[in-house]
């Protein structure tokens, strides 16, 4: 039944509504171009690509992925269209292979809506090509056929589009790559394959600048922090059972992956389940060396389970829809049975089958959601401050920690299937990428009833909430926050940081303040990089702050000159590896005057929003999740209290 095509071979298409499935080992971009009788693409509006995913009759996906499903309705494409080219391309500038030869041969299949495969084609013999025309669907005497093309282009998308007669080929290719890279900023990074808690102990060779920010490696730093457990007046939050190498000794010879401590305490035993009912969920019911690590793994496990459970439900409902449609079509297409009681009965039956399957799927979904909700109910109160909501009681008993936690809560995620089931969004520390808190309305759904001034204020508040949390979860004096607020327009939002004294200097204002601040941080990145490369950490000047640095940039790009923009890009690129992080509070539209020079900046940051917004994708099945930032409840003084403790602890340690 399935025709396995070889290059150049064609095959008739039995129907006009089709799905084209693409699978490749690595994320690729899939698109389609429409051609007239001569095969010429008449303009950019004849190209379906991630930035413009929908054309009449064609629907492609918005982001690069290893698997794609393109929906095609050949009955709906314009009359002038005689060819539809399905094209694949490797995303540029986001890492990953740059030529098809470096990855497994892509596989494309044309299937009916019900999943029956009509034809398939494995694109072999690709080498240096980075874009390829996979299939061509074309009209021949009123009927549509498919041809396996497999024409690759080493010049990438631009060369391919140019070859199809598109005058603005290069510009469009750039736009597509831009949209794809932007898609990367909208996706949650996948969890590390086996989180084993490295980076949990500061002396371990954690990614990022842990080694360089190691206080003990800098002799000028007078009192090294006391090892966990022996701190004077000890805020004894050293983490039970994590007694790995302390941060005391000058040199640590221990293999970072090896522990000398006793085996971790086993997870709390689950109470025996009542027969016939699922086991009662327990907080910390996952693998890990410490309770924090177990909770972290458990939260990621819940995230994956929710993603997959929703995928199961959605695929069952889709299947029920398509089966009913097919059955109703079947009744309609036979003139003998189109009318009359038999037809009515058949229609009724098709609808009943649909309802039954959807109900069954919903029941399974509800069962799984109830289980996850019960788990969330026990997990949420057990979370340590770094993972907890601001209204959690653990913040009331907050103590300045002795070591950095493994992750930080940025907010929570939920799916439309059940809005009250919230999964904490945890990112690993030290931060691997900066944050961009989008203060613009672009990309927000229309339903968000907030005007742009209010949105800016919320964005600044969100930045403060994230910064306060970072300050609180790092040990005393090991995290420094700087603020650039050129026009001083967010002074009210930054007031809690300033009042409590955690900011070492007031927000930088004016062009001069901006350039001084950026110069100082650039210098720090340069010096630490040099020290790391030459292995001379003790040669750093004594006045250098070796704590991790966070720079909050408010109201970008007002008050920034070209030089400042270049420095920001440098900080975004080079900073994270030496412990300098960026938090941009910006509306991308405002920065458009700078043109594409800023695109790498946006795409290197994780975009989050100050209001609930559906823009983050999970790493497994790519659902759109609604992100909601972790904000301080109105009227709560928790941030002030926590920051006061941070300042007290700094004074106690003489930092």
């Amino acid at each position, binding site marked *: *039944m*399935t025709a*396995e095509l070889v290059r150049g071979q064609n095959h008739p298409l039995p129907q006009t509504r089709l799905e084209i499935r693409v*699978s490749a*080992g690595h994320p690729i971009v899939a698109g389609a171009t429409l051609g007239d009788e001569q095969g010429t693409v008449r303009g950019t509006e004849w190209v379906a690509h991630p930035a413009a995913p929908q054309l009449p009759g064609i629907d492609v996906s918005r982001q690069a992925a290893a*698997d794609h499903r393109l929906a095609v309705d050949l009955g709906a494409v314009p009359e002038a269209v005689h060819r539809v080219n399905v094209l694949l391309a490797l995303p540029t500038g986001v890492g990953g292979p740059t030529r098809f030869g470096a990855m*497994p041969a892509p*596989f494309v299949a044309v299937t009916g809506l*019900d*999943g*029956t*495969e009509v034809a*398939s084609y494995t694109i072999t013999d690709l080498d240096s090509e980075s874009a390829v025309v996979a299939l061509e669907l074309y009209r021949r005497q009123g009927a549509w056929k498919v041809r396996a093309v497999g024409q690759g282009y080493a010049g990438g998308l631009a060369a391919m589009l140019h070859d199809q007669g598109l005058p603005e080929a290069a510009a469009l290719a750039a736009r597509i790559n831009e949209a794809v890279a932007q898609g990367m900023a909208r996706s949650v990074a996948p969890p590390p394959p086996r989180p084993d808690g490295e980076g949990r102990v500061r002396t371990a060779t954690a990614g990022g600048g842990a080694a360089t920010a190691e206080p003990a490696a800098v002799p000028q730093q007078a009192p090294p922090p006391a090892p966990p457990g022996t701190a004077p007046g000890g805020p004894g939050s050293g983490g039970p059972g994590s007694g790995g190498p302390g941060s005391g000794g000058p040199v640590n010879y221990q293999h970072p992956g090896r522990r000398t401590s006793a085996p971790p305490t086993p997870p709390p035993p689950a109470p025996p389940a009542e027969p016939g009912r699922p086991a009662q969920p327990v907080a910390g019911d996952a693998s890990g060396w410490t309770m924090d690590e177990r909770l972290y793994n458990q939260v990621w496990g819940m995230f*994956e*389970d929710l*993603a*997959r*459970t929703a*995928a*199961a*439900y959605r*695929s*069952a409902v889709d*299947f*029920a829809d398509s*089966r009913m449609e097919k059955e109703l079509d079947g009744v309609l297409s036979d003139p003998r049975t189109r009318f009359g009681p038999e037809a009515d009965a058949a229609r009724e039956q098709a609808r009943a089958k649909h309802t039954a*399957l959807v109900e*069954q*799927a919903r029941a*399974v979904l509800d069962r*799984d959601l109830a289980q996850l909700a019960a788990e969330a109910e026990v997990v949420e109160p057990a979370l340590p401050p770094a993972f907890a909501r601001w209204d959690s009681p653990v913040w009331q008993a907050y103590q300045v920690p002795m070591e950095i936690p493994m992750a930080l809560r940025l907010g929570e995620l939920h799916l439309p299937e059940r809005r009250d089931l919230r999964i904490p969004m945890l990112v690993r520390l030290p931060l691997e990428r900066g944050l961009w808190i989008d203060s613009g309305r672009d990309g927000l759904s229309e339903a968000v009833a907030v005007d742009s001034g209010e949105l800016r204020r919320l964005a600044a508040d969100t930045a403060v909430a994230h910064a306060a949390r970072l300050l609180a979860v790092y040990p005393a004096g090991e995290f420094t926050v700087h603020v650039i607020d050129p026009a001083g327009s967010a002074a009210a939002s930054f007031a809690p940081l300033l009042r409590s004294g955690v900011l070492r200097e007031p927000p930088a204002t004016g062009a001069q303040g901006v350039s001084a601040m950026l110069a100082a941080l650039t210098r720090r990145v340069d010096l630490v990089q040099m020290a790391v490369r030459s292995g001379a950490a003790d040669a750093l000047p004594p006045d250098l702050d070796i704590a991790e640095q966070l720079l909050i940039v408010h109201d970008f790009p007002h008050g920034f000159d070209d030089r400042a923009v270049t420095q920001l890009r440098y900080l975004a690129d080079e900073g994270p590896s030496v412990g300098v992080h960026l938090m941009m509070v910006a509306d991308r539209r405002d920065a458009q005057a700078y043109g594409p020079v800023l695109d790498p900046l946006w795409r290197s940051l994780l975009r989050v929003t100050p209001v609930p917004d559906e823009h983050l994708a999970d790493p*497994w*099945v790519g659902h759109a999740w609604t992100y909601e930032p972790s904000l301080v409840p109105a009227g709560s003084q928790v941030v002030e209290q926590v920051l006061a403790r941070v300042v007290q602890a700094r004074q106690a340690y003489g930092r």
Partner: protein
Amino acid sequence: MTVNMSKGQAISLQKADGGTLTAVRMGLGWQAAPRRGLFGSRTREIDLDASAVLFADKQPVDVVFFRHLVSDDGSVRHTGDNLVGGAGQGGDDEAILVDLQRVPVHIDQIIFTVNSFTGQTFAEVQNAFCRLVDETNGQELARYTLTGGGQYTAQIMAKVQRDGAGWQMKAVGEPANGRTFQDLMPHILPHL
């Protein structure tokens, strides 16, 4: 107690104590190709692949194989591609885990297949077997010996299908030829 299954034999996946199975594993094991004399390091590896095709109403809706290790819903997981086989001591070299409780409701049949990706026929592969294991207690439910399977490069192993509220397994054991499960689709369809 292991059942050595023969073609067409059906067993219901009911436990002895009356409870139904919740998780099963299809394991596939084979012995690596023997080294030969001079230039013995030149690879002649045997790569067998286990796949599971998920059907809803006789339409394939998802496949779990070495290029797609987890079904979208997460209920069927492949433990990873093994390209060379094991020592032939009876351990599984590739395995597919099925969480039967979480299989989406529209999926009513799951077909397990084995293919020889490198093209050796089962007559050439030593100590190859395929088995179905109750994942909750490790008990082997059924076992097939592939070795001596004649001049074939693929086999449709077994079918797990919904049976009322539970599941039932049927041994298929039909030999076929093909490199991946895609080549087997025409042979699979009659068994649905």
